[in-house]
Protein backbone atom coordinates (compact mmCIF):
# COMPACT_ATOMS: atom_id res chain seq x y z
CA UNK A 1 0.00 0.00 0.00
CA UNK A 2 2.70 2.36 1.09
CA UNK A 3 4.52 1.88 -2.18
CA UNK A 4 1.52 2.88 -4.26
CA UNK A 5 0.80 5.93 -2.18
CA UNK A 6 4.37 7.14 -2.42
CA UNK A 7 4.38 6.40 -6.13
CA UNK A 8 1.19 8.35 -6.71
CA UNK A 9 2.20 11.32 -4.62
CA UNK A 10 5.41 11.50 -6.56
CA UNK A 11 3.90 10.81 -9.95
CA UNK A 12 1.72 13.89 -9.70
CA UNK A 13 4.94 15.83 -9.76
CA UNK A 14 6.88 13.45 -11.95
CA UNK A 15 4.32 13.52 -14.72
CA UNK A 16 6.42 16.35 -15.93
CA UNK A 17 10.09 15.95 -15.40
CA UNK A 18 10.27 19.70 -15.73
CA UNK A 19 8.67 20.04 -12.36
CA UNK A 20 11.96 19.20 -10.71
CA UNK A 21 13.63 22.10 -12.42
CA UNK A 22 10.91 24.61 -11.79
CA UNK A 23 11.80 25.43 -8.18
CA UNK A 24 15.39 25.65 -9.25
CA UNK A 25 14.64 28.07 -12.06
CA UNK A 26 12.45 30.03 -9.71
CA UNK A 27 15.26 30.15 -7.19
CA UNK A 28 17.81 31.48 -9.65
CA UNK A 29 15.32 33.91 -11.07
CA UNK A 30 14.53 35.45 -7.71
CA UNK A 31 18.17 35.52 -6.64
CA UNK A 32 19.08 37.33 -9.81
CA UNK A 33 16.42 39.91 -9.18
CA UNK A 34 18.10 41.10 -6.00
CA UNK A 35 21.13 42.70 -7.64
CA UNK A 36 18.80 44.35 -10.14
CA UNK A 37 16.81 45.92 -7.38
CA UNK A 38 19.47 46.57 -4.77
CA UNK A 39 22.00 47.91 -7.21
CA UNK A 40 25.02 46.07 -8.57
CA UNK A 41 27.33 46.85 -5.65
CA UNK A 42 29.28 43.65 -5.26
CA UNK A 43 30.43 44.07 -1.68
CA UNK A 44 26.97 44.62 -0.41
CA UNK A 45 25.66 41.70 -2.39
CA UNK A 46 28.34 39.31 -1.20
CA UNK A 47 27.57 40.30 2.32
CA UNK A 48 23.89 39.57 2.12
CA UNK A 49 23.86 36.65 -0.29
CA UNK A 50 23.34 34.00 2.43
CA UNK A 51 20.37 35.99 3.64
CA UNK A 52 19.07 36.29 0.11
CA UNK A 53 19.36 32.55 -0.40
CA UNK A 54 17.28 32.07 2.68
CA UNK A 55 14.68 34.65 1.71
CA UNK A 56 14.34 33.06 -1.70
CA UNK A 57 13.91 29.63 -0.16
CA UNK A 58 11.18 31.02 2.07
CA UNK A 59 9.37 32.31 -0.98
CA UNK A 60 9.61 28.95 -2.63
CA UNK A 61 8.09 27.28 0.39
CA UNK A 62 5.36 29.89 0.66
CA UNK A 63 4.43 29.42 -2.97
CA UNK A 64 4.55 25.64 -2.82
CA UNK A 65 2.52 25.21 0.28
CA UNK A 66 -0.01 27.87 -0.67
CA UNK A 67 -3.36 26.24 -1.36
CA UNK A 68 -1.72 22.88 -0.91
CA UNK A 69 -5.02 21.10 -0.26
CA UNK A 70 -7.22 23.17 -2.53
CA UNK A 71 -7.40 20.75 -5.45
CA UNK A 72 -7.84 17.77 -3.17
CA UNK A 73 -10.57 19.63 -1.35
CA UNK A 74 -12.39 20.65 -4.51
CA UNK A 75 -12.18 17.15 -5.90
CA UNK A 76 -13.46 15.56 -2.72
CA UNK A 77 -10.29 13.62 -2.07
CA UNK A 78 -10.01 15.02 1.45
CA UNK A 79 -13.38 13.43 2.21
CA UNK A 80 -11.99 10.12 1.04
CA UNK A 81 -8.97 10.52 3.28
CA UNK A 82 -11.16 11.18 6.26
CA UNK A 83 -13.31 8.12 5.61
CA UNK A 84 -10.44 5.85 4.73
CA UNK A 85 -9.29 3.05 6.98
CA UNK A 86 -5.67 3.30 6.02
CA UNK A 87 -3.36 5.59 7.91
CA UNK A 88 -4.07 9.15 6.84
CA UNK A 89 -1.31 10.40 9.05
CA UNK A 90 1.09 8.45 6.94
CA UNK A 91 -0.36 9.83 3.73
CA UNK A 92 -0.11 13.35 5.03
CA UNK A 93 3.44 12.74 6.11
CA UNK A 94 4.25 11.47 2.64
CA UNK A 95 2.62 14.51 1.12
CA UNK A 96 4.81 16.79 3.18
CA UNK A 97 7.92 14.84 2.32
CA UNK A 98 7.19 14.62 -1.37
CA UNK A 99 6.42 18.31 -1.69
CA UNK A 100 9.69 19.01 0.11
CA UNK A 101 11.42 16.59 -2.21
CA UNK A 102 10.25 18.42 -5.28
CA UNK A 103 10.65 21.99 -4.18
CA UNK A 104 13.36 22.29 -1.58
CA UNK A 105 15.64 19.42 -2.39
CA UNK A 106 16.47 20.65 -5.90
CA UNK A 107 17.51 23.96 -4.40
CA UNK A 108 19.57 22.29 -1.72
CA UNK A 109 21.35 20.13 -4.26
CA UNK A 110 22.39 23.21 -6.16
CA UNK A 111 23.66 25.15 -3.16
CA UNK A 112 27.29 24.06 -3.78
CA UNK A 113 27.07 25.49 -7.29
CA UNK A 114 25.44 28.65 -6.00
CA UNK A 115 28.18 29.01 -3.43
CA UNK A 116 30.84 28.84 -6.08
CA UNK A 117 28.98 31.31 -8.27
CA UNK A 118 28.62 33.85 -5.50
CA UNK A 119 31.98 33.35 -3.77
CA UNK A 120 30.54 31.96 -0.60
CA UNK A 121 33.26 30.46 1.58
CA UNK A 122 33.30 26.72 2.03
CA UNK A 123 32.43 26.91 5.72
CA UNK A 124 29.53 29.27 5.14
CA UNK A 125 28.26 27.13 2.31
CA UNK A 126 28.30 24.14 4.58
CA UNK A 127 26.27 25.93 7.21
CA UNK A 128 23.82 27.29 4.65
CA UNK A 129 23.38 23.78 3.37
CA UNK A 130 22.86 22.37 6.84
CA UNK A 131 20.34 25.01 7.88
CA UNK A 132 18.42 24.58 4.64
CA UNK A 133 18.30 20.81 4.98
CA UNK A 134 17.05 21.00 8.53
CA UNK A 135 14.95 24.13 8.23
CA UNK A 136 13.00 23.71 5.02
CA UNK A 137 10.96 20.66 6.07
CA UNK A 138 9.78 22.69 9.05
CA UNK A 139 8.80 25.62 6.84
CA UNK A 140 7.00 23.39 4.38
CA UNK A 141 5.07 21.66 7.16
CA UNK A 142 4.02 24.94 8.70
CA UNK A 143 2.88 26.22 5.31
CA UNK A 144 0.89 23.08 4.68
CA UNK A 145 -0.72 23.45 8.08
CA UNK A 146 -1.74 26.98 7.07
CA UNK A 147 -3.37 25.76 3.91
CA UNK A 148 -5.20 23.03 5.80
CA UNK A 149 -6.67 25.73 8.03
CA UNK A 150 -7.92 27.72 5.06
CA UNK A 151 -8.78 24.87 2.73
CA UNK A 152 -12.40 25.87 2.20
CA UNK A 153 -11.75 29.53 1.49
CA UNK A 154 -11.19 31.21 -1.83
CA UNK A 155 -9.01 34.27 -2.49
CA UNK A 156 -6.56 33.17 0.16
CA UNK A 157 -3.30 33.61 -1.70
CA UNK A 158 -2.14 36.28 0.70
CA UNK A 159 -4.09 35.11 3.72
CA UNK A 160 -2.06 31.94 4.16
CA UNK A 161 1.36 33.63 4.23
CA UNK A 162 0.04 36.21 6.69
CA UNK A 163 -0.97 33.43 9.06
CA UNK A 164 2.00 31.25 8.47
CA UNK A 165 5.07 33.46 8.22
CA UNK A 166 5.17 34.48 11.91
CA UNK A 167 5.61 30.81 12.67
CA UNK A 168 8.60 30.70 10.36
CA UNK A 169 10.55 33.10 12.50
CA UNK A 170 12.36 30.76 14.89
CA UNK A 171 13.69 28.75 11.96
CA UNK A 172 14.81 31.90 10.19
CA UNK A 173 16.50 33.34 13.21
CA UNK A 174 18.47 30.26 14.16
CA UNK A 175 19.50 29.70 10.58
CA UNK A 176 20.57 33.29 10.11
CA UNK A 177 22.38 33.23 13.39
CA UNK A 178 24.25 30.03 12.50
CA UNK A 179 25.31 31.57 9.21
CA UNK A 180 26.36 34.77 10.94
CA UNK A 181 28.26 32.80 13.56
CA UNK A 182 30.32 30.87 11.07
CA UNK A 183 31.12 34.02 9.14
CA UNK A 184 32.70 35.63 12.20
CA UNK A 185 34.38 32.43 13.26
CA UNK A 186 32.13 31.51 16.17
CA UNK A 187 30.69 28.11 16.89
CA UNK A 188 27.31 27.39 15.38
CA UNK A 189 26.63 23.95 16.79
CA UNK A 190 24.11 25.23 19.25
CA UNK A 191 21.93 26.75 16.54
CA UNK A 192 22.03 23.61 14.45
CA UNK A 193 20.97 21.58 17.46
CA UNK A 194 18.09 23.92 18.10
CA UNK A 195 17.03 23.71 14.46
CA UNK A 196 17.20 19.95 14.72
CA UNK A 197 15.07 20.12 17.83
CA UNK A 198 12.50 22.22 15.95
CA UNK A 199 12.49 19.69 13.14
CA UNK A 200 12.06 16.78 15.52
CA UNK A 201 9.32 18.66 17.29
CA UNK A 202 7.40 19.60 14.15
CA UNK A 203 7.66 16.69 11.79
CA UNK A 204 6.29 13.88 13.96
CA UNK A 205 3.41 15.95 15.30
CA UNK A 206 2.45 17.53 12.01
CA UNK A 207 0.57 14.60 10.41
CA UNK A 208 -1.68 14.30 13.47
CA UNK A 209 -2.19 18.02 13.62
CA UNK A 210 -2.98 18.09 9.91
CA UNK A 211 -5.50 15.31 10.20
CA UNK A 212 -7.21 17.10 13.05
CA UNK A 213 -7.20 20.35 11.09
CA UNK A 214 -8.60 18.78 7.96
CA UNK A 215 -11.39 17.27 10.02
CA UNK A 216 -12.20 20.66 11.50
CA UNK A 217 -11.96 22.42 8.15
CA UNK A 218 -14.14 20.07 6.20
CA UNK A 219 -16.96 20.19 8.65
CA UNK A 220 -18.37 23.47 7.50
Amino acid at each position, binding site marked *: *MLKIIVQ*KELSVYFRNLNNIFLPLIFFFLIISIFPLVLGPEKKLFDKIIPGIIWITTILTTILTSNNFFKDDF*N*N*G*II*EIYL*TSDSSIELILFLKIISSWFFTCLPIIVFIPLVSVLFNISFDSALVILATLIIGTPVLISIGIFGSALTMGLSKNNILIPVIVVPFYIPVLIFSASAIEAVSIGLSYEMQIYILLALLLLTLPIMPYLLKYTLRLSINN
Partner: protein
Amino acid sequence: MEISVNSASCYKNDNLIFRDINLTLKNSDIALISGSNGSGKTTLIKSICGIQALESGNVSINDVDIENKNSTYIENIIYVGHKNSLNNDLTVYENLEYLSALDLSINSNNKLKIEEAMNYFNIYKYKDYPVKNLSEGNKKKTSLARLVMTKKKIWVLDEPLSFLDDKSTDIFINLMIKNQKNKGITILSSHIDLSKNIENIKHLRM
Protein backbone atom coordinates in the same frame (compact mmCIF):
# COMPACT_ATOMS: atom_id res chain seq x y z
CA MET B 1 -24.13 -5.90 10.73
CA GLU B 2 -26.44 -3.06 11.63
CA ILE B 3 -26.14 0.66 11.09
CA SER B 4 -28.51 3.07 12.73
CA VAL B 5 -29.08 6.78 12.81
CA ASN B 6 -30.58 7.72 16.15
CA SER B 7 -32.65 10.90 16.48
CA ALA B 8 -30.04 12.86 14.58
CA SER B 9 -30.32 16.62 14.19
CA CYS B 10 -28.00 18.88 12.33
CA TYR B 11 -27.43 22.58 12.20
CA LYS B 12 -25.25 24.52 9.83
CA ASN B 13 -24.43 28.09 10.59
CA ASP B 14 -27.29 28.03 13.12
CA ASN B 15 -29.81 26.92 10.51
CA LEU B 16 -31.64 23.70 11.18
CA ILE B 17 -30.98 21.29 8.33
CA PHE B 18 -32.81 18.25 9.65
CA ARG B 19 -34.20 17.12 12.95
CA ASP B 20 -34.81 13.83 14.65
CA ILE B 21 -33.93 11.50 11.83
CA ASN B 22 -34.11 7.80 12.64
CA LEU B 23 -33.04 4.99 10.40
CA THR B 24 -31.97 1.44 11.09
CA LEU B 25 -30.55 -0.79 8.42
CA LYS B 26 -29.60 -4.45 8.65
CA ASN B 27 -27.82 -6.80 6.32
CA SER B 28 -29.07 -6.64 2.72
CA ASP B 29 -31.00 -3.44 3.26
CA ILE B 30 -30.99 -0.71 0.66
CA ALA B 31 -32.14 2.73 1.73
CA LEU B 32 -33.05 5.40 -0.77
CA ILE B 33 -32.93 8.91 0.62
CA SER B 34 -35.07 11.22 -1.44
CA GLY B 35 -36.41 14.70 -1.04
CA SER B 36 -36.51 17.99 -2.80
CA ASN B 37 -33.42 20.06 -3.46
CA GLY B 38 -31.96 21.50 -0.32
CA SER B 39 -33.83 19.13 1.98
CA GLY B 40 -30.63 17.82 3.54
CA LYS B 41 -29.86 14.55 1.79
CA THR B 42 -26.21 15.31 1.26
CA THR B 43 -25.88 16.56 4.79
CA LEU B 44 -27.39 13.40 6.21
CA ILE B 45 -25.16 11.22 4.10
CA LYS B 46 -22.11 13.09 5.27
CA SER B 47 -23.19 12.68 8.87
CA ILE B 48 -23.52 8.94 8.35
CA CYS B 49 -19.91 8.91 7.18
CA GLY B 50 -18.77 11.01 10.09
CA ILE B 51 -17.70 13.92 7.92
CA GLN B 52 -20.48 16.20 9.08
CA ALA B 53 -20.85 16.73 12.82
CA LEU B 54 -24.30 16.29 14.31
CA GLU B 55 -25.76 18.67 16.81
CA SER B 56 -27.48 15.88 18.69
CA GLY B 57 -28.19 12.21 18.17
CA ASN B 58 -25.67 9.84 16.74
CA VAL B 59 -24.85 7.25 14.13
CA SER B 60 -23.84 3.82 15.30
CA ILE B 61 -22.64 0.62 13.74
CA ASN B 62 -23.47 -2.52 15.68
CA ASP B 63 -24.53 -0.25 18.52
CA VAL B 64 -21.14 1.44 18.79
CA ASP B 65 -21.25 5.19 18.18
CA ILE B 66 -19.04 5.98 15.19
CA GLU B 67 -17.43 8.77 17.19
CA ASN B 68 -16.29 6.16 19.67
CA LYS B 69 -12.64 5.19 19.48
CA ASN B 70 -13.44 1.48 19.38
CA SER B 71 -15.86 1.93 16.55
CA THR B 72 -15.23 -0.13 13.46
CA TYR B 73 -16.98 2.35 11.25
CA ILE B 74 -13.96 3.26 9.25
CA GLU B 75 -13.36 -0.37 8.35
CA ASN B 76 -16.92 -0.89 7.24
CA ILE B 77 -18.06 2.23 5.49
CA ILE B 78 -17.21 3.28 1.97
CA TYR B 79 -18.34 6.73 0.89
CA VAL B 80 -18.75 7.88 -2.69
CA GLY B 81 -19.72 11.52 -2.60
CA HIS B 82 -20.99 14.00 -5.02
CA LYS B 83 -17.55 15.08 -5.98
CA ASN B 84 -15.61 12.51 -7.90
CA SER B 85 -12.64 12.17 -5.54
CA LEU B 86 -10.32 11.78 -8.49
CA ASN B 87 -7.05 13.46 -9.16
CA ASN B 88 -7.39 15.18 -12.52
CA ASP B 89 -3.78 14.71 -13.49
CA LEU B 90 -3.57 11.01 -12.85
CA THR B 91 -4.94 8.45 -15.27
CA VAL B 92 -8.00 6.35 -14.60
CA TYR B 93 -5.81 3.39 -13.72
CA GLU B 94 -3.59 5.40 -11.43
CA ASN B 95 -6.55 6.92 -9.68
CA LEU B 96 -8.06 3.55 -9.02
CA GLU B 97 -4.72 2.28 -7.83
CA TYR B 98 -4.46 5.18 -5.42
CA LEU B 99 -8.02 4.81 -4.19
CA SER B 100 -7.59 1.10 -3.69
CA ALA B 101 -4.45 1.73 -1.70
CA LEU B 102 -6.56 3.87 0.62
CA ASP B 103 -8.95 0.97 1.22
CA LEU B 104 -7.47 -1.74 3.42
CA SER B 105 -10.26 -4.18 2.62
CA ILE B 106 -8.81 -4.56 -0.85
CA ASN B 107 -6.07 -7.10 -1.23
CA SER B 108 -2.62 -5.82 -1.74
CA ASN B 109 -2.41 -7.59 -5.09
CA ASN B 110 -5.01 -5.35 -6.59
CA LYS B 111 -3.98 -5.16 -10.21
CA LEU B 112 -6.56 -7.69 -11.26
CA LYS B 113 -9.21 -6.03 -9.15
CA ILE B 114 -8.61 -2.71 -10.84
CA GLU B 115 -8.89 -4.20 -14.29
CA GLU B 116 -12.06 -5.98 -13.24
CA ALA B 117 -13.50 -2.73 -11.93
CA MET B 118 -12.70 -0.87 -15.13
CA ASN B 119 -14.21 -3.63 -17.22
CA TYR B 120 -17.27 -3.72 -15.06
CA PHE B 121 -18.04 -0.10 -15.88
CA ASN B 122 -16.77 -0.28 -19.45
CA ILE B 123 -14.08 2.27 -18.94
CA TYR B 124 -11.16 0.00 -19.69
CA LYS B 125 -10.50 1.87 -22.89
CA TYR B 126 -9.92 5.06 -20.92
CA LYS B 127 -7.38 3.29 -18.67
CA ASP B 128 -4.56 5.62 -19.60
CA TYR B 129 -6.57 8.82 -20.00
CA PRO B 130 -5.83 11.48 -17.44
CA VAL B 131 -9.10 11.99 -15.63
CA LYS B 132 -9.40 15.59 -16.77
CA ASN B 133 -9.88 14.31 -20.32
CA LEU B 134 -12.83 12.12 -19.41
CA SER B 135 -16.45 13.02 -19.97
CA GLU B 136 -18.51 13.75 -16.89
CA GLY B 137 -20.25 10.38 -16.92
CA ASN B 138 -17.00 8.50 -17.25
CA LYS B 139 -15.56 10.39 -14.32
CA LYS B 140 -18.52 9.30 -12.27
CA LYS B 141 -18.04 5.71 -13.36
CA THR B 142 -14.40 5.85 -12.38
CA SER B 143 -15.29 7.02 -8.94
CA LEU B 144 -18.01 4.36 -8.63
CA ALA B 145 -15.55 1.71 -9.71
CA ARG B 146 -14.21 1.73 -6.17
CA LEU B 147 -17.34 -0.15 -5.21
CA VAL B 148 -16.42 -3.04 -7.46
CA MET B 149 -13.10 -3.37 -5.71
CA THR B 150 -13.98 -2.91 -2.07
CA LYS B 151 -14.95 -5.61 0.38
CA LYS B 152 -16.51 -3.05 2.71
CA LYS B 153 -20.09 -3.78 3.52
CA ILE B 154 -21.74 -0.43 4.12
CA TRP B 155 -21.97 1.70 1.01
CA VAL B 156 -22.94 5.32 1.41
CA LEU B 157 -23.50 7.02 -1.92
CA ASP B 158 -24.57 10.56 -2.74
CA GLU B 159 -26.44 10.79 -6.05
CA PRO B 160 -24.42 8.01 -7.68
CA LEU B 161 -26.65 8.04 -10.75
CA SER B 162 -25.90 11.58 -11.83
CA PHE B 163 -24.48 11.90 -15.34
CA LEU B 164 -24.73 8.15 -15.98
CA ASP B 165 -26.29 7.01 -19.25
CA ASP B 166 -29.01 4.36 -19.22
CA LYS B 167 -26.71 1.45 -19.71
CA SER B 168 -24.39 2.53 -16.94
CA THR B 169 -27.35 3.10 -14.66
CA ASP B 170 -28.36 -0.52 -15.15
CA ILE B 171 -24.84 -1.67 -14.52
CA PHE B 172 -24.73 0.32 -11.34
CA ILE B 173 -28.09 -0.99 -10.13
CA ASN B 174 -26.84 -4.52 -10.69
CA LEU B 175 -23.84 -3.70 -8.57
CA MET B 176 -26.09 -2.60 -5.73
CA ILE B 177 -28.13 -5.77 -6.07
CA LYS B 178 -24.93 -7.76 -5.88
CA ASN B 179 -24.04 -5.97 -2.67
CA GLN B 180 -27.50 -6.76 -1.37
CA LYS B 181 -26.94 -10.44 -2.09
CA ASN B 182 -23.62 -10.28 -0.28
CA LYS B 183 -25.49 -9.03 2.78
CA GLY B 184 -24.11 -5.53 2.33
CA ILE B 185 -25.99 -2.39 3.25
CA THR B 186 -26.46 0.45 0.77
CA ILE B 187 -27.56 3.97 1.56
CA LEU B 188 -27.97 6.23 -1.42
CA SER B 189 -29.58 9.50 -2.30
CA SER B 190 -31.25 10.01 -5.63
CA HIS B 191 -34.04 11.84 -7.36
CA ILE B 192 -34.85 8.74 -9.36
CA ASP B 193 -37.32 6.31 -7.88
CA LEU B 194 -35.49 2.99 -7.82
CA SER B 195 -38.26 0.90 -6.28
CA LYS B 196 -39.13 -0.47 -9.71
CA ASN B 197 -35.62 -1.72 -10.20
CA ILE B 198 -34.77 -3.02 -6.78
CA GLU B 199 -36.88 -5.09 -4.44
CA ASN B 200 -37.28 -4.33 -0.77
CA ILE B 201 -35.93 -0.85 -1.00
CA LYS B 202 -36.45 1.27 2.10
CA HIS B 203 -37.51 4.80 1.46
CA LEU B 204 -36.51 7.77 3.59
CA ARG B 205 -38.17 11.01 2.55
CA MET B 206 -36.56 14.12 3.92
